[in-house]
C-alpha cells in the first residue's frame, strides 16, 4: 500500500493538539477553575449558578441574623431595665402600704414612683438604629406619650403590627413585640398598674391592692419578655447551622469548578512533554529522499 508521502499536516495537527491541551491546563491552573466556559462542563455550569444563589442567600441570612440579634439584644436589655425599675416600684409600694407613713413620706414615695414611671416610658420608647422597638410597625415615632388625662398616664401611638424576617429557606421568625402587648396589654397593663399605684399613694387609697396589680402586671411583662430570649436562642442555633451550611456550599462549589492543583500541574507537565516529543519527532522527520543519494 502506498504511503502518504506528505505527513507533515498530520504532524502539525498533532503538535497543535498537544499545545492546545497544555494551554488548557495552564488556564485551569491560573484561574483555579476547571469550568471557565459553560462548554467545559455544561451540567456543572448550571449547578454553579444555583450554588452561587445558595451561597449569596446563606451570607444574607447570616447578615440578617446579626442585625436582628442587635434588635433583640437592645429590646431585651431595655426590658431588663424595666423589670428592675418595676421591682423598685413594687418595693416602694409595699413601703407605702404600711399604715405608719406620714404624708411627707408618702409624697416622697409618690415622687420616686413618678420618676420610675418616666424611666419606664423612656425605656418603652427605646430605639435601635433609628427605629422604635416597641411600636409595632409604626416604628417612626415614639410609641408612648404622656397623657395625664388617661388612667394609665400614657397614650399608645404604636400599632399591633409584627414584622417577620427570613433567617433560612422557608424559615421566618417574628422580630418584635408591640408595646400594646408588653406594657399596655388589656388586663395586664404595666402603665395602668403603675399609674394607679402612684394615684393610690398620693391619695392614700388602697395601696396594697395597687401593689398586687402591679406585681401581676410585672409578672405578665416578664413572661412576654421571654419572646426575646427565645428569639436570641433561635438566632444562635440558626447561625451555627448556617455556618456549617456555608462550608458545605463552598465545598460543593469547589467540587464543581475547582481545580486540584496537584493533578493540574501533573497534566500540564505531561502536556508539555507531549509537545516537546512531537516537536522532536517533527524535527527528526527525515527530509532525505532518493535524490540526495543519486549522483
Amino acid at each position: 500500500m502506498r504511503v502518504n508521502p506528505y505527513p507533515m499536516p498530520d504532524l502539525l495537527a498533532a503538535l497543535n493538539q498537544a499545545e492546545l491541551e497544555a494551554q488548557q491546563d495552564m488556564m485551569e491552573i491560573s484561574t483555579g477553575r476547571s469550568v471557565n466556559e459553560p462548554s467545559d462542563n455544561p451540567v456543572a455550569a448550571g449547578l454553579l449558578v444555583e450554588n452561587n444563589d445558595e451561597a449569596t442567600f446563606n451570607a444574607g441570612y447570616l447578615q440578617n441574623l446579626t442585625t436582628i440579634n442587635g434588635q433583640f439584644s437592645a429590646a431585651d436589655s431595655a426590658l431588663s431595665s424595666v423589670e428592675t425599675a418595676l421591682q423598685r416600684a413594687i418595693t416602694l409600694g409595699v413601703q407605702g402600704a404600711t399604715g405608719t407613713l406620714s404624708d411627707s413620706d408618702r409624697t416622697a414615695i409618690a415622687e420616686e414612683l413618678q420618676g420610675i414611671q418616666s424611666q419606664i416610658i423612656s425605656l418603652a420608647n427605646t430605639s435601635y438604629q433609628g427605629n422604635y422597638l416597641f411600636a409595632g410597625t409604626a416604628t417612626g415615632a415614639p410609641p408612648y406619650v404622656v397623657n395625664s388625662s388617661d388612667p394609665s398616664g400614657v397614650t399608645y401611638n404604636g400599632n399591633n403590627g409584627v414584622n417577620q424576617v427570613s433567617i433560612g429557606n422557608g424559615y421566618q421568625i417574628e422580630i418584635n413585640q408591640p408595646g400594646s402587648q408588653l406594657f399596655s396589654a388589656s388586663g395586664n397593663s404595666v402603665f395602668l398598674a403603675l399609674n394607679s399605684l402612684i394615684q393610690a399613694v398620693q391619695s392614700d387609697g388602697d395601696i396594697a391592692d395597687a401593689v398586687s396589680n402591679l406585681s401581676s402586671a410585672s409578672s405578665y411583662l416578664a413572661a412576654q419578655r421571654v419572646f426575646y430570649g427565645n428569639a436570641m436562642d433561635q438566632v444562635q442555633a440558626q447561625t451555627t447551622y448556617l455556618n456549617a451550611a456555608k462550608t458545605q456550599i463552598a465545598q460543593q462549589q469547589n467540587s464543581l469548578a475547582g481545580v486540584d492543583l496537584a493533578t493540574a500541574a501533573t497534566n500540564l507537565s505531561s502536556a508539555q512533554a507531549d509537545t516537546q516529543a512531537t516537536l522532536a519527532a517533527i524535527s527528526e522527520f527525515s527530509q532525505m529522499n532518493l535524490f540526495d543519494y543519486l549522483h
Partner: protein
Amino acid sequence: MSGLYGTLSIALSALATSQQALETTSNNVANANTPGYSREVPVLEPGAPLLFGSLSLPTGVVLDKIESLRDPILEIQLNQETQQNSYQNAQLAQLQQIQTGFSSATSGIGADITNFFNSLQQLSPDPTNLALRQAVLTAAGNMATDFNTAANNLEVQRSNLDQTVVEDVGEINTLTAQIANVSQQIGVLQNQDESTGPLVDQQTSLIRQLSGLIDVQVISTGQGGIELTTSNGTPLVSGIQSFALSTEVGSDGTEHVMSGTQDITDSLTGGSLAGTIQIRDQEIPGMLSQLDQLAAGLSNALNAANQEGYDLNGNAGGNLFSVPPAGGTGAAAAMQVAITDPSLIAASSDGTPGSNGNLANLSAVANQNVANGETPIDFYASLVSQVGSTTSNTSAEADASSQILQQLNDQRGSVSGVSLDEEAANMVQYQTAYQASARVVSTIDALLLDAVNIGLDGTEQ
C-alpha cells in the same frame, strides 16, 4: 519502415518518449508541494505495428497519455466532509462567542437576579432604611442593564451574521463563475485530445473551496462536463455556465439567500453559509426568546407583588419595572427600572412605613415559576447548561469531522501525492532508457556508415 532506418526510427521514438517521461517526472517534482496537485504518470504504449502483407513491423514506443492519479470517490468524500466540517466550525465560532456572555456564575444575569433578591432580604429587618432601599434599586438596575446588554449583544451578533451571509454568497458566486470557466477550458483541451490534469486539479480545488461554503453535489455528465447543485437541487454550475445566487432582505429583516426568485435560505444543509444561517435564524433567536421570557416573567411578577403593598408614604405600590412589550418579544432589551425614588418600594403590608410585610411577597417571586414553569434562577441555570452543551456538542462534532478530513486527506495523499523517492527512481529508469536508446542510435549510426561504405576498398573516401 524496415531495415536500419526502421530501427533508427524505433530508437528515436524511445528517445522522444523518455524525454517526455522525464518531463512528467520533473513536473511532478516541481509540484511536490502544490496543494491539490495530483501526480501524473506517463502512460507508455507500444507503437501500433505497421502491416506489410503478412509482416507486422514494430514501431517502437508511444506516449499514449499523461494520466493524473486521483480517486474520484475520495474527492466526493472529501467534499462532503469539508461541507460538514465547515458547517460545524462556522457554528462553533459563533457559539463560543455567545457563551462568553454566560461564563461566570458570580457575575452576569444569574448573579444579578440572586443579588436583587438578596437585597430585598437585607431590607427586611430595617424596611425604612433609605440606604438599603437604594441598594434594592441599584441591584434592580444592574439586573435590567445586564438583560439589555445580553439582548443587544445577541442582536449585534445576528446583524454581523447577516453581513457574513452576503459575503459568503458573493464568494460562492465568484467560485461558481471560476468553476464554469475552468470547465470550459477543460472542454476545449479535451476536444483537442490534450492532457487536462492541472486544469482538473484546479477545478477539484475550486469545488473543494465551494464545499467549504455550501452543500454542493457534483454530478459528472461525461466528457468532462459537470453539474453542481446544492443538495436540494438548486443549480450552481451546469456545464460551462454558472448560476449566481443573490441575497434579498426578507420580511423578517434578515438577508435571505435567493436562487432567482426562489428562497433557498432554509434548505442549505452544509458548508459555512448553512452554519451561519443556523446560528442567525435558530440559535440566536432561541436565546433571545428565552431571555425575553425571563425578563418579562420577572418584571410582571415583581410588579404584581409591589402593587400588593404600600410604599414609605403610605401609598399603594406601583410598578418596579417597565411593563414588558405585549407578547414578550424584546422584553430583555427593553427592561428598565421604573422608579428612581427608593421610598416607592412597597415594603409595607399595613400602610405604616415600618412594616416589612410586603417584602415577603416580593421575595416570594424568587420561588415562583415565572418562566416556562421554572423559578428565575432555575430557568437561568438551565439556559447556561443548554448553551454549554450545544457548544460542547458542536465542538465535539467539529473535532470528529476534522479527524475524518485528516484521514481522507492522508488517503488522497497516498493516491495522488508526489513521492520524491518514487520520482527519483522513475528518473533513473527513464534516464537509463534514454541512455540505452542513445547507444542504439550510435550503433545504428556506425552500421549505416558501414552500409554506405559497402563495396569500397578503402581507396575512395
